[in-house]
Structures are given as structure tokens and as C-alpha cells.
């Protein structure tokens, strides 16, 4: 058990800032646990045995490295550029979420804790958490907005089959934001026995850094794979952004490659102008939510405004602080994709490549269509786009069937 030792004190000096973003805005009761977690993460990063154990799970349980698939028929609709898909959808449990969850579950054991709690919106992170808990013999409680438990009843059943307890959250807007509030309240109360396994690169330090460290394997693998396939770096890397974990995961290894554009696609809902969206960087302002300073959808009194997206996984009024920073320094670009554009790309990938993407990932695909056309019309039709296909669409079949008027 790592607790209040020298490492922990040293770790508390590291504030986890990304420029003016990030930091810790939490009840004092959590500071000690956050310090312990920071110390445990740092020591695990430098522990070859921990890294070996995680790499073994990636290889034999998750199915890493995930492959790269070229999507030429889809790319015909994107100005004819080359589009390479990083297939995180093929991971066990169906998305990139498992990368982070396995890392944090190992850390939970390392800290001597027996219980994990998690928040979930679409249910992907909840399912991944329940999976890791089953694998490692941990107790698992998942908080999920009551509204989302109805929209994603299949994932609720999956979590229960995996032995997790799912608690529907009836406070506030009854969605992901309120599930996070309730998980934080549980954590404040049970912090000695419990690890809060946060699913994205938001929240107080060390979560944005730690979750990124567990997700950056996506970009590390992809960079090698693209170099091997094309002999050069991609022209742009694209990913969808809710909290931003799959995006930071694929961006991170490319940050120092200045020729590579990094493009995050936010959920534009019914359009940023309509007010019904989840495009936090494009349509929000700087504020503090869930323990970190970043961009937030908020009103004039600093109250969080509800987000709207057809994609439950992007339906969050905050965003990771490192993305806010990459936006502010101009290293990454952020654009909004509407529900309609995302669903068009969802359908297109399904019909041209035989791959049904998660609706989250379909936002990145819609971005690729726009960017590809822009590059082609500027004379760069030989451009290579690398896109993180962060999850598969099985969970979205009902939503998509309703959207396209398919009778079930």
C-alpha cells in the first residue's frame, strides 16, 4: 500500500497543469487519495514489472496491437485522400476504454484497494471497468445516469452479467455529468477502500495525465504502423472528443511531429449555434468542472449547462485540460460535427468498408470527409489521414435503426 510516504509528499508538489488548465479543484478530503494515486502512478511508470504485466494483458487479453485498416472506398467520398483507421474497435469490450481500465485496475491492486467505482455515459467505460474487475477479482460499482440506463439498457445488462452493481443516478440531469458527481461523493465517503476509476482525461490531477499515459499506446503503435505502411508520417491525425481520452491517446506521440496536424472532432449535436450540442472547446468557455480547469458549457452564473449529442459517449459538458491547452497554443484544431454529419459518416463507413463504427467514432469519420475534401481541393489528394476508430457500433444499433427508420 502506497500511503503518505516520501513519494506521496513529492507527488503533491506536482500540480498537473497544462498551461493555465488542469490542476485540482476538489474537496480537501480527496487530496490524500489523489497524492497516493499520483505516487502510485509514477512508481508504476518506472516499474518494469508493472509495465510487463500490463503489456502481457494488452497482448493476451485486449488483443493489442490493434491493426491499421486502409479505407479506400470510404476515402473516395473524402476527396480521394488515403484514410487509415486505427482499429481500437477490435479491442476486447469493443473500444479504447479497456487500455485505461486495465492500467488503473492494476494500480488499484498495487495500492491495496479492493473496490473500484466508475462513471459511465454510453456504458463502454462501465463495461470495460466491470470486465477488468471480474478479471482481477475487484468489487465494482458503476454510476450511470438514469436517463442513460434507459438509452443503453444492453450495456447495463452486460455490466450486471460481469458481476458489477449498476446504480442509476437520479440527481440533476440524470446523465454522465451527474454520474460523475455521484461517483465523487462515493469516493469522498469510501476513499480508504475504493479507487475511482475515471474513464477519461478529465478530473483532478493525476487523472488527465494518468489516463493519457494509459491511452498513449494507441498513437505509439499507430505511428510505427503508418511509417511502416507509407514510409512517412501522416499529414493529419483525427479523433472524436468527448472527455478526450481516445483523442489524446492517438495525438500524444505525434505532438512533437510538427508537420502532423492534430484534429479533434467534437459533438456538434443539432449545431453549435442551436445551443444543443456538446462541443465544449468550439462552443464553451473557460471554467472549472469536476475538479479541473478547462473549457466548460456554462451559463452566466457558472452553472453547468446540459450537453446534447446523439452519441452518449460524447455527451459531456467538459473536456480534458490537455486538449484545452493544445487548443490554446494552436497545436491541435477542434471542430464540431453535427449529429446528421456523424450519422451520414456512420452509414457510409458501414456500406463502403463493412465496418459499423461507434457513433462517437463516426464524428471523426465525418471530420475526415471534410478534411479530405479540403486537402484535395488544395491540391493535396495524396495526403494521408490517420483516424482513431475508437469503438464499434454494436451498442448503437438501436439508436441507428431509429435514426434511419429501420424496423426492429
Amino acid at each position: 500500500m502506497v500511503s503518505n510516504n516520501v513519494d506521496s509528499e513529492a507527488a503533491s508538489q506536482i500540480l498537473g497543469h497544462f498551461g493555465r488548465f488542469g490542476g485540482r479543484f476538489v474537496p480537501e478530503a480527496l487530496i490524500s487519495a489523489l497524492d497516493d494515486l499520483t505516487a502510485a502512478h509514477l512508481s508504476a511508470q518506472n516499474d518494469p514489472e508493472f509495465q510487463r504485466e500490463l503489456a502481457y494483458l494488452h497482448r493476451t487479453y485486449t488483443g493489442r496491437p490493434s491493426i491499421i485498416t486502409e479505407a479506400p472506398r470510404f476515402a473516395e467520398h473524402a476527396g480521394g485522400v488515403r484514410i487509415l483507421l486505427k482499429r481500437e474497435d477490435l479491442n476486447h469490450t469493443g473500444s479504447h476504454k479497456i487500455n485505461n481500465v486495465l492500467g488503473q485496475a492494476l494500480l488499484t491492486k498495487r495500492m491495496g484497494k479492493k473496490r473500484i467505482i466508475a462513471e459511465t455515459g454510453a456504458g463502454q467505460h462501465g463495461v470495460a471497468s466491470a470486465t477488468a474487475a471480474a478479471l482481477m477479482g475487484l468489487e465494482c460499482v458503476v454510476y450511470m445516469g438514469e436517463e442513460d440506463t434507459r438509452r443503453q439498457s444492453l450495456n447495463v445488462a452486460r455490466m450486471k452479467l460481469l458481476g458489477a452493481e449498476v446504480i442509476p443516478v437520479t440527481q440533476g440531469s440524470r446523465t454522465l455529468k451527474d454520474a460523475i458527481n455521484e461517483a465523487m461523493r462515493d469516493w469522498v465517503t469510501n476513499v480508504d477502500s475504493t479507487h475511482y476509476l475515471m474513464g477519461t482525461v478529465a478530473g483532478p490531477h493525476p487523472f488527465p495525465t494518468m489516463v493519457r499515459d494509459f491511452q498513449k499506446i494507441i498513437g505509439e503503435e499507430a505511428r510505427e504502423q503508418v511509417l511502416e505502411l507509407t514510409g512517412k508520417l501522416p499529414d493529419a491525425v483525427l479523433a472524436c472528443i468527448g472527455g478526450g481520452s481516445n483523442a489524446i491517446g492517438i495525438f500524444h506521440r505525434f505532438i512533437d511531429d510538427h508537420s502532423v496536424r492534430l484534429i479533434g472532432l467534437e459533438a456538434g449535436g443539432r449545431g453549435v449555434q442551436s445551443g444543443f450540442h456538446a462541443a465544449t472547446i468550439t462552443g464553451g468557455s473557460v471554467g472549472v468542472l469536476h475538479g479541473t480547469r478547462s473549457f466548460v458549457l456554462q451559463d452566466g452564473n457558472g452553472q453547468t449547462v446540459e450537453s446534447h449529442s446523439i452519441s452518449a459517449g460524447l455527451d459531456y459538458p467538459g473536456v480534458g485540460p490537455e486538449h484545452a491547452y493544445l487548443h490554446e497554443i494552436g497545436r491541435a484544431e477542434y471542430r464540431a460535427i453535427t449529429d446528421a454529419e456523424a450519422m451520414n459518416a456512420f452509414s457510409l463507413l458501414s456500406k463502403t468498408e463493412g465496418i459499423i463504427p461507434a457513433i462517437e467514432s463516426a464524428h471523426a469519420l465525418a471530420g475526415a470527409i471534410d478534411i479530405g475534401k479540403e486537402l484535395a481541393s488544395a491540391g493535396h489528394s495524396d495526403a494521408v489521414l490517420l483516424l482513431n476508430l475508437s469503438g464499434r457500433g454494436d451498442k448503437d444499433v438501436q439508436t441507428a435503426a431509429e435514426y434511419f427508420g429501420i424496423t426492429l
Partner: protein
Amino acid sequence: MTAMEELFIRTKAENRAALIGYIPAGFPSKAACIEVIKAMVAGGVDAVEIGFPYSDPVMDGPVIQAAAEQSLSAGTGAEDVFDVLKATTDLGVPGLVMTYWNPIEKYGVEKFAQSLQAAGGSGVITPDLTIEESGLWKSAAEAAQINRIYVVAPSTSTARMPLVTSQCSGFIYAASLMGVTGTRNSVSNGASELVARIRQTSATPVAVGLGVSTKAQAQEVAAYADGVIVGSAFIRLIQESENFETGLLRVQELAAALADGVRR
């Protein structure tokens, strides 16, 4: 010196603890909130902590969450908070605001401190502002000569304790247990131990909150702390009374019982 600091000098001279009541601004309505505060003060509450209702109150249990939600749905904003504060301090009791950090940042950090001072407020309790992030707030609060009150928890390490308590003025808010706001059947044993640990690092008065709701609990806490903070118990009386008038009477009765308790 703020009115809050003067209060602690007086209660110390009277050999008792101060009784601090909490209510979110705008609950159950703006006008009714002021009536509740008057009832608290009539019953013997020494100072009032006015909550700035917030959409994501992670430190609060179900009672205060529901009250804050009700207030927010009526559109309560910063100016309403300051109006309620002004009405409180006009009664001649010290007034404080308790708020999560984002509403302060959105309002403007310096402007918030100034508006609070202009409403006669003594200080602000900031439950999610860590001392590491408090630089701007420190200068703003010092310029407006208002108190900065931070929460200390049972989990606060011995090494960290003086870093937090040295930043507090007016009083130090000791969270009696690991958890959220709300009434409990008993006050945690950890509370007296925590107060003792705080006193080893600071001479600033210490008030205990979280879970205090009865005269006996107030009496128990007053034996070792300088202040007793009660919130959810008052709010529940308003929520559960068959009509508002009855609720007000019960608030006043509870305040009187607690006031008796803090006199040990």
C-alpha cells in the same frame, strides 16, 4: 477585523461555541429564504452561512442537493446570493457565503470579493478550492479584507495540515467525517481528534461541520470546538413541514435547542 472574527472573540469570552446555520440562497424562495434566516437568528444562531446553489455540488448530500436544485430552477444567481447576504448582515449577525469555485471564477474573482464585502459579508467558505489553486483568491480576499475559510478533512496529512490552516482566516472548517453534507445519527469520533490536530498548527478558531443536527451533538462538539455548523437539519425541517409557517417555527425551535447546546 470581520464581524465573524469579532463573534469568536465574544463567544470565547462567554466560554461557549458559536452556532453557525447554513441555507442555500433562494431556498425555498428568495423571500422565504430570508424568513428562514430570521427564524434561525431569532432562535439563537450566531452567524449564517449562505450557500451559492451550484449545478454540480459534489460535497453535498441529498438534502442540500435537492434544496440547491429547487433554488437553481427558480433562477437564483450571484446577485440573489448577495441580496440574501445583505439581508442577513442587516440583522446584525455575521454572514458568510459558501460556494464551489466555478461561480466565483465566472463572476470575476476580485469582483466577487468586493461584492461580498459590500454586502457586509465576513468571508467565503470554498469547499473545492485547494490551497494550491488559491493564489488569485488570496489576493482578492486580502484586498477586500474578508476571511478565507478552507475545509480540513480527517484525511488531511500531518505534513499538509499547516499548509492549509495557515491560509485560513476567520475560522477553520473541520469536516467531521469523510463524506458529504447531511445529518448523521452520531458525530464521528474522528472530529475531536481532527480539531486537536488542527490546533497543533494554528490558533485560528475551529468550527466543525458535517453531520451535526441535534442539541446533544452540538453540546458534544462545543466541548472541543469554537463553532458548530448546522445545515441539512434546518433545510430538512423546511422540506418536511406541512406548511412553511410550521417549518419556520420548527427552525426557530431547533436553533434555540442548538444554541442551548453550544452553551455546553
